[in-house]
Structure formats: C-alpha cells, structure tokens
C-alpha cells in the first residue's frame, strides 16, 4: 500500500520506527492529488497545487502528520473562503483554536483546503463556488455535504484524515456517502473559535477519518475547553483510545422507530438492519424506542439555522475584506456585493432566516422552534436515561446523482432528516461504514450517545469495525 492509503495511526507507527518521514507522506498525498483531483475536486485549488510548505519535523505526538482542513476553518495565512465568492482572497490573520491544537500536537496543516458547500449550506457540495466535488465511489454522484471535500479526500486517499464541520449532518452524511468515519462531537466539546459560523448554536467541528481509532485520536487532540469560545464546555477530555475495547456485551442500544420509515431507500434499510443484527450478535441488547418529535426536526432546524445564519452572514458586506462590488454609494455597494458574492442557496437561507426573525413572525417561528427544540432534546434525554446509545441510519439514501436534487431544495433538505436532531439536541453522533448498495455506494451507520459520551460511540464503532471489513474497502477511481 502507498503511504497516502494508510490510516494516521498506521503512519505514526511507521514514523516512530524510523521507516518513513512525514515529508514522504506529504509527497505521496500531493502525488495523489495531482493524479486524481481533477476528477474528484475534493480540494479547492486556487492555482497553487505545488506545495510550498515545509514538513513540520515535529517531535510532538503527531510527528508532522498532515491534516486536511475544511475551507470554513481559519488557517493563518492560508485562504479561508468558505467556498464563497464573497470571501474571495480572505486570509485570516489567526488560526482557529482547533488548528492551534493540531499544531501544538505536531500536526502538519495540508495547504490545500477541502471543498464544501458555500458557507456549509448544502448536503451535496454542489453549492461550492469552486464547483462540485465528486464521490470517489462513483464520480457521477455527490459526496454528500457540506463537508464533501473532506470526506471525498479521505475516501480517495487524497488525505490521511480531515476536519469537517457539522451543523445538521455536514460531517456524518458525507462520511456515510463516501464510506468513511465522521464524528460530530457534543456541542461545546470542540471550540468553534475560528470556524466561520453558519448556525452558532448548532455548529461543531469534528474529524473525518479512515477508521474509528483515527477518529478517537483526532477528537482528543481538537477537543477541550477554550476561553475564547463562551459555548465551549470546561470538562476534561478523556483519552478516547482507551474506549477502543472491542467489547459491547450487555450494552443497551436503542433503535428509534421514526428513523426507519417509508421514504427511506429499502437497500439502505436492509444494510442498516444487517448492521444492527451484527451488533446484536456481538452481545448488545437491542430495543426499539420512540423519538416522538423527530418529524419536527427538519422544520425546526431550518428556522433556527437560517435565522442564525442570516445574522452571522451579515458581516459579509464588502467593507473590510473579501469581494466588493464597484459602486459609488454605500447601499448600492452592499446590495451589489451581496447579490454578486453569495450563491443561490446562501441567498435563500439568508432570506428565510431574515423572515423568521422579522417583527411579527419571531414568536410564531423562531421562538416556537426553540420550544420544539427543547422537546426534541428531551426525547433524547429520556432514551439515554435507559440506553447507552442509539443506532440508526445516517441518511435515508446512499449518494445521489450530481444535479438530481439541485432544483428541489426541499428534497435536498430531507437528506439530513436523520442527522439534524442530533445537532438540535447538542449530542454527539458518528457515522461509520456498514455496507453498500447494489450500485456499490457506501451506506453509513449512525451511532448517537448522550452529551459528552463520545466514549460509548467510539466503543461501539470500533467494536463493529473490528468485526467487519467495510472500512477497509477502497474506491477505484476511473481516470
């Protein structure tokens, strides 16, 4: 196997025993990107495909191992544009806290940023100003989104591992579509400082990796209290690798009946049912439960997320940075900059959110959505008072064709139907590969747990992985 095909923990072993250097890993990644990224478009290539950076040569834990970063996480001196025209040329003068954490742990930051839906608005990475990313398993299909670039890069061995961000499923759904591991940590577990906000009360940065062990390592490194983020929680971070025990005997797993309903792809259902049987075979106690308010998750999410987004995106006005349309008066400059700088989906969400917050509608929409959000959270609390975790599909379908849903935003929004509740409840959840459809498209299994109980998720995920081979399969990219 080539170096770029290995997992981070395998590579760390090789660096430690002296058989390779982190420079060699960077080189193999660049080779791979040069070879296939014209097809996959996992990375935003701003004309600088030649690598300019140097190996960190770090002696710290990660020994210079490269990490791929989504384009909405601030990297000092590297363009961070959220794949939007409006942030054209924006180079943050500071690193996000997660980047600081990575650098302190000896990671090398891969200079190419991962493609994404503009401002993380989307479920297919088709809303990128830099063009769609293609699913490595089938280049005609979407990789999911919004962290489609991160997931595709990891799946296509153009990255060892990556960071994404998840507001309504943006890590888990593309991980599922691309057959890799993706974790959305508990809200407050990882600092949001330096993550260009979509919906502040839902956003969370998390890892996209080739296996659960890598996810456990990367989560520990990026997690922790940050005094620069008032919403981060001051709670110590456990060594998650200690949870990788390959033992789930007696573990109580809940299956929410609302996640197996009509409208989901029967092939996906069959694959997930099989995975649940596997867990049962490994000694877990499986029981069906109800998450009664699930049907409200999508509308509640699209009110809260767009409301927050409409305010978060107000700062992109052409005054200080990014794209500015030419105009001789202020109001025109605002209008033209935003009309020309934002893509269609961004505009749609800004308008939705502005409407939801408007005088006379606030109580009926935003305030009501907050109340239902509490009910959704209570549903989970109730289940977690009896169960260790919940297992469900990550998405109702496997990857769909590029262009198939772009004309129907509502249908697109429904591809997040199983991932959104987790963000509303603030709990952690991970998608792991659990099989394929007949068309050889990956299917993801979602494992959810109570707040700050990532350990159980890693335990279940790792145990499943140790007893299956899905995570070892790699796509063949037609060149």
């Amino acid at each position, binding site marked *: 196997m080539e170096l770029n095909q290995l997992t981070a923990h395998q590579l760390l072993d090789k660096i430690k025993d002296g058989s390779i250097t982190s420079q060699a890993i960077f080189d193999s990644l660049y080779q791979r990107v040069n070879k296939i990224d014209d097809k996959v478009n996992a990375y935003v290539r701003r004309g600088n495909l030649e690598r300019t950076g140097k190996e960190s040569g770090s002696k710290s834990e990660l020994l210079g191992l490269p990490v791929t970063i989504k384009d909405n996480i601030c990297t000092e001196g590297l363009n961070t544009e959220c794949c939007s025209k409006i942030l054209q040329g924006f180079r943050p003068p500071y690193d996000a806290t997660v980047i600081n954490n990575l650098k302190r742990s000896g990671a090398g930051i891969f200079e190419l940023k991962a493609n994404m839906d503009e401002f993380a608005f989307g479920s297919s990475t088709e809303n990128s100003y830099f063009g769609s990313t293609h699913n490595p398993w089938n280049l005609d299909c979407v990789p999911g989104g919004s962290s489609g670039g991160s997931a595709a890069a990891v799946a296509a061995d153009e990255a060892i591992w990556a960071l994404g961000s998840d507001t309504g499923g943006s890590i888990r759904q593309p991980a599922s579509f691309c057959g890799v591991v993706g974790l959305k940590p508990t809200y407050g577990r990882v600092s949001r400082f330096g993550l*260009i906000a979509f919906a502040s009360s839902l956003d969370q940065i998390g890892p996209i990796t080739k296996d659960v062990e890598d996810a456990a390592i990367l989560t520990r490194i990026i997690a922790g209290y940050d005094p620069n*983020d*008032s919403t981060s929680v001051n709670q110590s971070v456990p060594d998650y690798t200690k949870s990788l025990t390959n033992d789930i005997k007696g573990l109580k797993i809940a299956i929410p009946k609302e996640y197996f309903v009509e409208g989901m792809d029967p092939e996906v259902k069959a694959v997930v049912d099989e995975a649940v049987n596997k867990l049962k075979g490994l000694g877990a106690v499986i029981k069906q439960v109800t998450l009664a308010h699930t049907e409200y998750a999508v509308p509640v999410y699209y009110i809260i997320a767009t409301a927050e987004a409409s305010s978060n995106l*107000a*700062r*992109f006005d052409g*005054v200080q*940075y990014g794209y500015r349309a030419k105009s001789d008066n202020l109001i025109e400059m605002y209008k033209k900059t935003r009309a020309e700088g934002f893509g269609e989906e961004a505009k749609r969400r800004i308008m939705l959110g502005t409407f939801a917050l408007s*005088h006379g509608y*606030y109580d009926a929409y935003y305030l009501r959505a907050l109340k239902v959000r509490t009910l959704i959270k209570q549903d989970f609390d109730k289940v977690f008072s009896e169960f260790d975790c919940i297992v469900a599909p990550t998405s109702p379908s496997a990857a769909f064709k590029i262009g198939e849903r772009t004309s129907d935003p509502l249908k697109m929004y429904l591809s997040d139907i199983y991932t959104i509740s987790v963000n509303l409840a603030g709990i952690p959840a991970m998608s792991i590969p659990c099989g394929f459809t007949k068309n050889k498209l990956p299917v993801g299994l979602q494992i959810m747990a109570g707040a700050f109980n990532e350990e159980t998720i890693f335990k279940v995920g790792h145990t499943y992985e140790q007893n299956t081979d899905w995570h070892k399969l790699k796509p063949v990219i037609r060149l």
Partner: protein
Amino acid sequence: MRYQTVIGLEVHLQLSTRTKAFCGCAIDFGQAPNSCVCPICLGLPGTLPVYNKEALNSAIKVALAFNCQIQEHTKFDRKNYFYPDLPKNYQISQFDLPLSRNGHMYIYTENKPKRIGITRIHLEEDAGKLVHEEANSLVDFNRTGIPLIEIVSEPDLNSPQEAFDYLTGLKSIIEYLDVSDCDMEKGSLRCDANISLRPEGSSQLGVKTELKNMNSFKGVKDALQFEVERQAELLLSNQQLVQETRLWDAEKGRTVSMRSKEGAKDYRYFPDPDLTLFNINKAFVEEIRGRLPELPLDKMHRFMKDYSLSEYDAKILVSSKKDSQFAEECIKIYSEKDKKPLVNWLIGPLLQEAKVRKAGISELNIEKKELVNLVGFVQRQEISGLSAKTVLSQMIDTGKSAELLIKEGNLLQVSDLDDLNKIIESVIALNAKSVDDFKAGKSNALMFLVGQVMKKSSGKANPKIAGDLLRRRLSNA
C-alpha cells in the same frame, strides 16, 4: 390650552474598563485610527465574543447606584442592522432580559426633591466611528466594542430644566462610582431625548419626537426648549404632529427633521447564540453592593446631619465627588463648632473662583489648611470680608499663605483702640452735621460716620469695633 411637557432620556455611557466588552483589546483614546483593534472587535469571520467581567461588574455597580433590581437571568441579544461602523452588522446588546430594571434617582429642580424612574439599565457594545472626507468615508474601529451602558429613564421629566438636572445628577452619581469619564464632548456620554406635549391633566402621551445630536447638557436643554415651543405652536394651531427623529443643530439653535419613524426599523433582535444565557448570583450582587462608595444623596444627608448644614448647602457641596472630599476635609480641619462660615466660603467665594477658572474647587491651587486659616482671619475680624476675597484670589494665583498675603497687603484691620479713637476724633470733628443728626435720633448717620472711619483708615478699620466706639463716644458727649 395649557400643555404639560413629557420627557424621557436615553443615556449611553462608555465604561472605562481596561479592555473592550467582548475581546482583550486595551481601551486607549487618542490613538491612531484602527490601532486598538483585534480580529474579534473587527468582527473577522470565525471570531467569537467573550464578555468582559469587569464591564459586567461596572454595569451592576451603576444599576445598584440607580436603585435598579438586578435580574437573576440575563442574556445578550443581537441587534441587526447594516452600517459600516458596525463590523458584524449587528450590535451585541440586551433586549428582553436586560441586566436591570425599575430603578430611580432624585432631582432637585427648584430645591424640591423629585423622583425620576429608571426603566432599565443594560450593557452593550459601542460601534466604530465614521470619518467623512470629501470623496470618501473612512471607518475607525478603535471605539468598536467598548462597553456601553444604556440608562433609560421613565417619561417622568416635565421640563428642559428637569432634564438638565437629571443629567447633572446622573453624571454626579457615575462620577462617584468612577466607572466612566462622562464627557459628552468626547462622546463618552451620549444622550437622546424623547419629548411630547399633552394637555394638562391628560394621562395619555402625545406624539413624541426623538431628539439626537446634542453634545452637551446645555445642548440637551436648549434642544428640548426649542422642541417644547415648536410642538406647542403646532398644537395650538391645531396642526398634526408626526412621530419623527429630529437632529439638534447647535449653531442655528433649532431642530431639523431627520427621518419619520412610521416605517419603524426592524432590528430582528434574537438571543446571541455565541453568548449563553447567564445567571447573576445574588451573593455576587450583594458583594458589589457592599463595596459601593457613598453616593451623592447619602453624602448630602450625612453632611446635613454631621455638620448641621442646610440641604441647599449640602447639595452644592456633594455634587462633585472630588470637591465634596475637599470640602469635607476642610470642614474637619476647621475647629469651630459652627461650620456655616466655612461652608459659606466653600460654596461662595471659593466656588466663584473655581468657576472663573473653569475648574472644581478641589483643583484650585490652594491648601485646605490655608483656606481654613483665611476663614479664621475673617471670623476673628482681623481682616474684612472684602480683603479676604482678594487674598483668596491671590492665594490661588500665587500659592502663598493667607498670613503672608495679609501681611504683604497690610490688610490687618485696625482694632487697636488708641489708633481707632484717633481716627474717630478726626471724623467727628469734620462731620458735625452727621453728629448732630445722630444725636437727633437719625441712626443712619452712624453708618455714614463708620463709613468715614473706614475711608480714613483705607478700609482697615474694624467696622464693628469702630461702630461701637463711635456710638459710645457720641452717647457720652
């Protein structure tokens, strides 16, 4: 018809904390544009606010000083609007759960205490400053993110003078708390006013005007006075008033319409998801309350009690914190039981000297001990009141002691009986008619004769002793 004026004021105060409200930038005035900024107060993508505990403490202090109830649960909200001096295009403020509500303070217009309600006091962040050039407008973000508190009064003020007295009283309280510069000209205190008229006896509010762009307390008073007259004129001629914002033009001495409020702005307030709801611990509030300094009203009452001062005198003494400290130290040095003579000098000639020099009495170049000495000379009738005023002025100008200046000016009053008798004899000899008048029962004549003694002694004769001697001399004759 007679109208009642109804005024409510909104005061914004910059808190003089060490750092900004939501980032670690040091607050430093007069620096080069855009030099006191960081990615957070510039609102760069990805940055997050963290609230400044010192600003919260100061705001709680102010709220307590205005007798507000501190709310147990409070939060920050976003006020959304586009303007280039607002880098995030929203301002972090407080909407439906402000830090505090239901306070009050007293004003003393025409020396009668009147209670003015405070609706709410909340914390927010300041915006930047636009600098307009001929072809361009530039933004300076140094001010962006400086903590502000907004103090909203009830519409309890019924005249421009009351509004002026409210602002003066408010400034005095803030000055005692030492939390803000309170300088309206520098912009650390800003005031908008809402004003309407209604028929006397009516309980319904009239159509209001919001006044902006006043940059001194006097400007507020003048703008309100102009508005009272403008509105009354319209109402008396049965014309309709429109609810609008008007700008005060200090040069022309009038208000001009800025925009009609009919299409009221929708700020789309909502809780800032970057700053979680927080609880203000009661014990914490009590701790701050315990550390509050003595406030003007308390000090006034204490002065009245401890030094037997009138309310009027005490009120003048306490209006400035530093001056009240200066005054109290003088009072303590002054050993006489009756403090009134000294107080009269503090709020009379000394205050006058301070006003002339555009300073507070504590800022004048005069030692407390020396001031007390000077008053002693007057009280012992060793110099005349008139001479003492001159000496006071010279003391401030030169820093010399009272005693030295009196000696240099040869100002000691002549109280020596022999010397005085000599002068009296010569005055009697020269003013036979007045002497006769006095003997005929015209008491005014004595005053005239005393005046002549004073004149002859170049003002140094002790007028009281001279009068006594004269009376005795003429009665015996």
